[in-house]
């Protein structure tokens, strides 16, 4: 154990000295994925980097980019009698316009935290007289498992299971960022687990068309330092490519099997991203063939046009335009105990990561 730690420290020292050598000029890197945001804050990586390197957080926490209207819609559904809502735990405290799932549960709604879609299916099997709705929130990483659950439900004829799909995919929002004149990013840490599904081909336009290199990165402190070195080397050598640091998990071609599952069950649709707005073809809706298991078709749900809280700058945080601590609500009206925007409530939200771990946010 101690030897392993010593090795890691030596390696980290090597990466850091190369970073210090290569980072003579300012270089801004956006980490796309919320898990990276947390890993960077938790390991206090910013403190170790030279001032010329800026790490900013991108739109990669699925909870954070879920639109207020979608939140109010699933809260409406969760409050219906005879409905069991199955959800991953990180949704339980996300505030809608009036309530949260946690508050609804205390008021008597049947809301269960599940660890997988298989648990949700099991709930449906065990409660045949209830409607079990799984809240489908996530990127390409979790979408295949939701697709499998829908195929299983269809195959087994489980008619009381459905999914409310609020799923989103990563490439379109990256294109939007690349085309935004206000964006100041030079390079990207690309999401390791998303790319383990989709591969690197869907991201290559960033490097080719926009000159924005990326490295598919793992989630330990060493992975992140190595990826930063790889990006700096690309700059030094005048290259712009999508490379893979996280090669123990992510392969260039991704996971064709998982991709097929997604394609069979879902189709691209336009989707609203919180604070960013409508992005064409950036969401996934459930295909007609699985319409009977689509909660949006199965239940009559009103359309909500929920406004975001005035002053909340989640949108600018998600686009990397400001650091969380620059939001006027940060740490004052908006804290993890009383979150205003979802960037503060989700454990992977950049605001929560800053509030939880980063020293600068204290001072």
């Amino acid at each position, binding site marked *: 154990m101690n030897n392993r730690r010593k090795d890691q*420290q030596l390696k*980290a020292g090597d990466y850091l000295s190369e970073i210090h050598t290569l980072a003579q000029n300012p270089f801004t890197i956006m980490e796309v994925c919320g898990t990276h945001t947390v890993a960077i804050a*938790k390991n*206090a990586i910013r403190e170790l980097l030279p001032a010329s390197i800026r790490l900013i957080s991108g739109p990669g926490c699925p909870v954070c980019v879920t639109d207020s209207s979608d939140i109010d819609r699933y809260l409406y559904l969760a409050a219906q009698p005879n409905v069991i809502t199955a959800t991953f735990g990180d949704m*339980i405290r996300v505030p809608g316009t009036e309530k949260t799932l946690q508050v609804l549960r205390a008021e008597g709604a049947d809301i269960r935290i599940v660890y997988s879609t298989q648990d949700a299916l099991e709930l449906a099997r065990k409660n045949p007289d209830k409607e079990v709705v799984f809240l489908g929130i996530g990127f390409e990483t979790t979408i295949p498992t939701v697709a499998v659950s829908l195929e299983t439900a269809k195959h087994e004829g489980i008619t009381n299971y459905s999914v409310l799909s609020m799923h989103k995919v990563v490439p379109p929002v990256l294109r939007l960022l690349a085309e935004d004149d206000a964006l100041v990013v030079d390079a990207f840490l690309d999401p390791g687990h998303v790319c383990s599904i989709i591969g690197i081909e869907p991201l290559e336009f960033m490097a080719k068309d926009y000159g924005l290199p990326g490295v598919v990165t793992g989630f330990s402190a060493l992975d992140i330092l190595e990826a930063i070195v790889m990006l700096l080397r690309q700059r030094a050598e005048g290259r712009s490519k999508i490379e893979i640091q996280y090669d123990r998990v992510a392969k260039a071609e991704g996971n064709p099997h998982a991709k097929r599952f997604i394609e069979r069950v879902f189709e691209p649709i336009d989707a609203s991203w919180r604070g960013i707005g409508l992005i064409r073809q950036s969401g996934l809706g459930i295909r007609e063939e699985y319409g009977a298991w689509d909660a949006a078709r199965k239940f009559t749900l009103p359309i909500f046009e929920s406004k975001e809280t005035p002053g909340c700058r989640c949108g600018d945080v998600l686009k990397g335009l400001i650091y969380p601590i620059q939001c006027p609500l940060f740490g004052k009206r908006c804290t993890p*105990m009383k979150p205003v925007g979802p960037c503060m409530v989700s454990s992977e939200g950049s605001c929560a990561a800053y509030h*939880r*771990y980063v*020293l600068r*946010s204290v001072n």
Partner: protein
Amino acid sequence: MERILLAHGSGGRLSHELIKTLFQKHLGNPYLDQMNDASLVPGQEQIAVTTDSFVVSPLFFSGGNIGKLAVCGTVNDLAVSGAIPKFLTLALILEEGLPMDELERIVVSVAETAAEAGVAIVCGDTKVVERGSADKIFINTTGIGYITDRLVGPGQIRPGDEILITGTIGDHGIAILSEREGLEFQTPVVSDCAPLNGLIDAFYLPGVKCMRDPTRGGVATTLNELAQQAGVSMLLVEEQLPLSLSVEGACEMLGLEPLYLANEGKVLVIVAPEVADEILLNMKAHPLGRNASRIGQVQEGKSGLVLLETPLGGKRIVGMLEGEHLPRIC
């Protein structure tokens, strides 16, 4: 299979039988055997009193069960306050239909753990509620301890003091979680649930400033409370945090932080720097303290701020547990 019936809580014949054949059989002692509405116990002018209720699910887990937990939890609250635990009360709320053999296993555990901790169960109560009105069994224990000359509490903490822990962290939380979610690890995680008064007697020296058992909310939340109460800052060193390999692996896999996981057999001890080495040696000489470690230091600085130095040398905040982590872990 024999099961608990509503009549077992009626106060009639079945209640009487249950008391005789189960509670008195396993827990009997001169105080309990008085069989009065209240037991008379020897006292002193000032006593320490604490109470705790136990609702853990599942009832049985690797390393313990709700009965053992109900004794340890209350004994430990007395012991870390500097008191000598002497007497416990035992109140049970049973759900109609609870298998009798499960109840007996729990009561036997209560008896064994009370004997290990050197406390007597001096009175008790049993209620039975209809099926569905409780989850199998809930337990409340109240503990009485004798005051010693151990002057401990957050008011004693000063910058420069050392922070020690008596062993690996997070074992109870992971043991419960893996039982509940059916996770299997190569080396199973065993709950650390244990009465700590013996360990505390073994390491205690004047110079111990404050003791707490980091149960719900874990080490992080307990240290935040202490730092706030004492108006000091604390710096932990991540590499010094004792972790079993299984807990480390489980946390990596599940995205949990060991600092927030519950412990049921560990003491956080804040000591004056000049006695830290000797106390650490005393801890390590006791079976429950073999993995004791010095994990950080009390510092001047922003009141209530707990920081952690990462292996790469950066510092980050360690905040309180927010919201629900795992319900019903004790």
